């Protein structure tokens, strides 16, 4: 299986690093391309194209960090900030648009109401992805 077009959705957590390192290793092997995206979820109280300064700053910081990791691996990547109502569908739309061969995502263990929870973004992506999905939990 060739992974030439790799999409890495960043969540801003520690799990991003492992996912990015893995993406770089695969990209180098197959001479592939990597896109890292961060989705700003815009609350309904604001129009979808609202410029939310603190959120944009956070997004840029996260993507800068991701770029650094890639540089350490001698990899060049493209980054993008997306704005959407929900992260899941936005990531899927991006995967379709970029014709991704694989989505690589880091997941961190979370607890919600005292129970193990993976959130609702990961299940949505697994359910709707047009390509293979690799989840990395550290």
């Amino acid at each position, binding site marked *: 299986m060739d992974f030439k077009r790799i999409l890495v959705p960043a969540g801003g957590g520690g799990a991003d690093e492992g996912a990015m390192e893995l993406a770089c290793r695969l990209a180098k092997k197959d001479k592939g391309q990597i896109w890292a995206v961060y989705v700003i979820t815009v*609350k*309904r*109280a*604001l*129009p979808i194209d609202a410029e939310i300064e603190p959120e944009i700053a956070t997004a840029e910081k996260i993507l800068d960090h991701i770029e650094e990791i890639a540089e350490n691996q001698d990899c060049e990547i493209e980054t993008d900030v997306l704005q*959407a*109502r929900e992260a899941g*569908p936005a990531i899927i739309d991006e995967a379709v648009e970029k014709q991704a061969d694989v989505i690589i995502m880091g997941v961190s263990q979370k607890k919600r109401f005292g129970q193990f929870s993976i959130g609702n973004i990961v299940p949505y992506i697994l359910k709707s992805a047009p390509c293979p999905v690799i989840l990395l939990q550290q």
Partner: protein
Amino acid sequence: MYIIVVGGGRLGYYLTKGLLAEGHEVLLLEKESEVCETITEELGSVCFRGDGCETTTLNEVGTSRADMFIAVTGDDEDNMVSCQVAKHKFNVPTTIARLRNPDNEDLFKKLGINITISATNLILEAIEREVTTHPLTHILTMQDKGWEMVDIRILPESTSAGKLVRELALPAESKLTLVIPRENKPYVPTANSVLKEGDRVIALTTPQTEEALRAALSGA
């Protein structure tokens, strides 16, 4: 426009679909999570799970920036309450409610809900238009002005047939705007126009004087 639709039944679903196709930003509020999921799958991220009567939910979906609020659940009371919350708490300029029971129309109007849609009334109006023996048909209602436009037929037995307009006992609040004879060209009636059997009179009137106008024109 930003439009909020409450109720993800068939009406809410197709309404949302239509409004999206026209390029509006639409949010559909639906209580049932399963219905919400199906709609999200089909229409994208346009559905929010929540109660359209709850202030907290309406706050979350940005009701204060909505241009229009349309409540189309199956229950009149839910539609009425959510429209009032939207109007009075979030100052939405236009609120529209679906009605099941036509009796509630007066109440909804009094409470400031801008437009009410009742399938019962729509069907009754369609029947009125289709069944041509009925001498009076409603063409248009200008709710905000209190006027309505009606189409009245002059029947063979009508006492107005052959009379001058000025001889008729027309209510003061009504205006005859156009006469469409069976064969000749339509004309704007004056005090000296003569009405004939088979004429259709297009008139402006109020709901209160509608019956008096009908009696004056097509009464036997």
